[in-house]
């Protein structure tokens, strides 16, 4: 299998990470060597194996629907790179 530059560009778009040509070429090299290594899994037949989604063999606990944290507005906004009163500010989305 080979991951080409077009695929790298596609993944970069999905990942929201910008890449230029030079970075894309480096990434293609790295990802190809990593995927060569991952391909080893194809040696195994797994048709009748149940996928393991969690090692903790418990069902999720239910809890009562109570508000435990409140008035956190200042805390929530505290680390924002840019805010205006109660809002996070981002570049204009709608013209």
């Amino acid at each position, binding site marked *: 299998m080979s*991951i080409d530059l077009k*695929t*790298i560009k596609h*993944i*970069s778009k*999905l*990942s*929201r*990470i*910008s*890449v230029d040509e030079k970075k894309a070429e480096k*990434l293609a090299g*790295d*990802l190809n*060597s*990593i995927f060569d*290594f*991952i*391909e*080893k*899994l*194809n*040696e*195994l037949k*797994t048709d009748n*194996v*149940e*996928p*393991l*989604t*969690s*090692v*903790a063999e*418990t069902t*999720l*606990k239910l*809890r009562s629907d109570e508000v435990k944290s409140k008035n*956190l507005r200042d*805390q*929530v906004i*505290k*680390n*924002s*790179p*840019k805010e205006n009163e109660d809002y*996070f500010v*981002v*570049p*204009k*989305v709608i013209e």
Partner: protein
Amino acid sequence: MSDITKQSLSELVENIKSKKLSSSEVTKAFVERSDKSKELNAYITEDYANALNKAKIFDEKPDLNLKLPGIPMAVKDLFCTRDLRTTAGSKILNNFVPTYESTVTQSIWNEGAILMGKLNCDEFAMGSSNETSFFGSVQNPIDKNLVPGGSSGGSSSAVAAQLTPITIGTDTGGSIRQPASFTGTVGLKPTYGSCSRYGIVAFASSLDQAGPMAQNVRDCALLHEVISTYDEKDSTSIEFKRNEYSKELTKDIKGKKIGIPKEYRVDGMPKEIEDLWKKGIEYAKDCGAEIIDISLPHTNYALPTYYIVAPAEASSNLARYDGVKYGFRAEGENLIDMYEKTRSEGFGAEVQRRIMIGTYVLSSGYYDAYYLKAQKVRKLIKNDFDDAYKKVDAILTPSTPSSAFKIGEKTNDPVSMYLNDIFTVPVNLAGLPGISIPAGHDAKGYPLGLQIIGKAFDEQNILNIAYAMEEKINFKNNITDWWLK
């Protein structure tokens, strides 16, 4: 007392409880040694003035019934600490000051310990040498320009160099045990679900666990006892009967059945690792354990499985860093451009690589071939352990396939870096507890570790085996303080 920093955690606790030492004296000693040890680059953020102040307050009305009375401690910078910057070793969180505290660190402060600062680590815990940190690589106190392991490299360096009496790290694929092995220290990765993940910067949520890193097994057991709690804020936290691990610690392991998995004898493993393992088997026999050969047939598939599961979960967890709510933001022409520039400038190369791998294996058309396949193989790996534990109580392996390497030696080859975790990754995939203890030195005089893997929730048993073997091994760390002027 100039030798305060040479004391183990247990000795310091004893000396504070018997009033031979005050918290201020102890804190001052560790702060001074940390301050003189900047060349190690173990700290990302120092909080010395606050620590000294808290020690003074503790001494005014000391509560000597606590488990960690007035003990200063630095922690891995992956744990959110209220009002103290938490970076996860990343530029993207360079200016992040949490407004809440992680459950694990809160448990530690509740027992009287005092925060000294935040320790360096690989960016988002993605690395095996601490070289992916935005804040630079960390020196191993064993030798100049030697990596301390990773991702908890600042933690292992700080414990080995006695900048902190004890610390906590996190372990997703070996990030506590491998650095412990590289620095001649003890590191425990608890069973998945024993320690709360609340307030720990997430990497791969089905694998991440916090755990203690210490100079000896007793200290490790004591800190584990403090941090292993059920927490409703973590939906995968598990309620089970937790031991008083340090009180119940015993060297009596007579008749314990210890398994030796033949698949861990990997191609190209250095002879000194093989010899160390053989020596470990003899030590275990000397302690009265019974040695049984076992098979974990899917061992070779653990790393490829890990390098699908962990990046997949990471790509999802790290989607939150978008430059909007917190952390670094790069300006962009529009919203998408801002996201892309923020993430491209804010994440380092290894993190970007893993996000891309994860995004790819989860993307449309590839999910079944990679992610689903990996989850199935993960089941086979867990089944291997389940089968083995029908015959044995614990498993003994080397911790790492080599001793610590030089800074820069493996940075250009991601796969060779990943191979560091070959013996530790299966334990995370199966959610089991594992402990690394120092067991010898290689020809260069660098420490080597042995790993004891337990059944789920059976931390007491592996701590006991480690405790018994530690006495037989009688390991001495050879640290010359070369970095002190």
